[in-house]
């Protein structure tokens, strides 16, 4: 599937790529942004999901 999206943390620049997920915090590859729990935080600076923006 090629329509996986990427989201970037506005504070530290970390990129969440749906295709890759974030296995370290328990998000399997392919986990969609909307399916990430609200209490998930940026693995690199700790801010909340709401600080991320969809990348163009």
């Amino acid at each position, binding site marked *: 599937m090629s329509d996986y999206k990427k989201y970037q943390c506005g504070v*530290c*620049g970390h990129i969440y790529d749906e295709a890759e997920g974030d296995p370290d915090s328990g998000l399997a590859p392919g986990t969609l942004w909307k399916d990430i729990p609200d209490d998930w935080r940026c693995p*690199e600076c*700790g*801010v909340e999901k709401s600080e991320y923006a969809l990348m163009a």
Partner: protein
Amino acid sequence: MHIVIIGSGVAGVSFAEKYRALSADDDITLVTREHDGYYSRPLLSRGFSKADIEQTIILKPFNKLRENNIKVLCDAEVTAINRADKSIVILGGQALQYDKLILAQGSSAFIPPPFRLYEKLFFCLNSLSDLKALRRFRQGFLDQNQRPDWAIVGGGLIGCEVASDLAVAGDKVTVFHAMDRLMERQLAPEDSILLLKVLQNSGVNVLLNQAVQAFSREKDKICVKTEATAGFDGLIVACGFKPRNELAELAGLETGRGIKVNQQMQTSDTSIYALGDVAELPNGKLYAFILPIRNQAIWLAEFLAGQQQGFWTPPVFTTKAKVHGFEAVHPYNV
């Protein structure tokens, strides 16, 4: 080989983890004065609006690094580097040999010289221990159903962020800024005006063109002296940062604003490297933001593991003032 790292901020920790991932055999020891783990410095500016911040700010407990075969000496203040016998000295007397030493001591708050006399009268917000001290002080007021009245000296990135967070948390805040607009170094003039409006709307009293001369204590108030004198419950000085050069200076390494490194992050001693807020590149720049620092740390880990050649070049990055409700229209100047 034994690699010793001084400092457990994003520079030291990112380097240690990456190097461990690339080299299973070398010994890695991270020495830090911290106690609570690896924490997020950007989140310090959200330290008042969030109740559980003292826990959530910790990105990784030190044990997590230890599980990854990184030796961590915490509550350990490094007091000297002995280049002749390649060792560092830890407060209390212990010495530690290194083959390669990574300096990642970061930065402390910059205190303008005229304010240094009054160190007992103000807080800074540079580390988790600063935040904890501020929160304890603030809690004393909340426990008596009062709201502290704050003065913040400095309308740069951190001053504006802290002002915003304290105001959102319900406190009364006055910002004293020396220049005629907020965050003049990072923002376009139009955005400074927007930021001013956002802060004012959240109840912050912003005073521009302020020449703050001195502080004093009058009974239970701390006074800020400009042309007039005003009293506050708490005072925070937020006037920028200062790389922690002292260890390097004492050891005779080349320093400028930071510890001077070449484009391979190597200091004037070929066994010693520097990363993060403390490292000054040949172009005279310090890259004091999370994204370029992680990039530096990972590059150096790859370089020392033999998987990288050439020079470190800074990645494209930007920043963002974490002021509640503020979005700049123009790009930031970083």
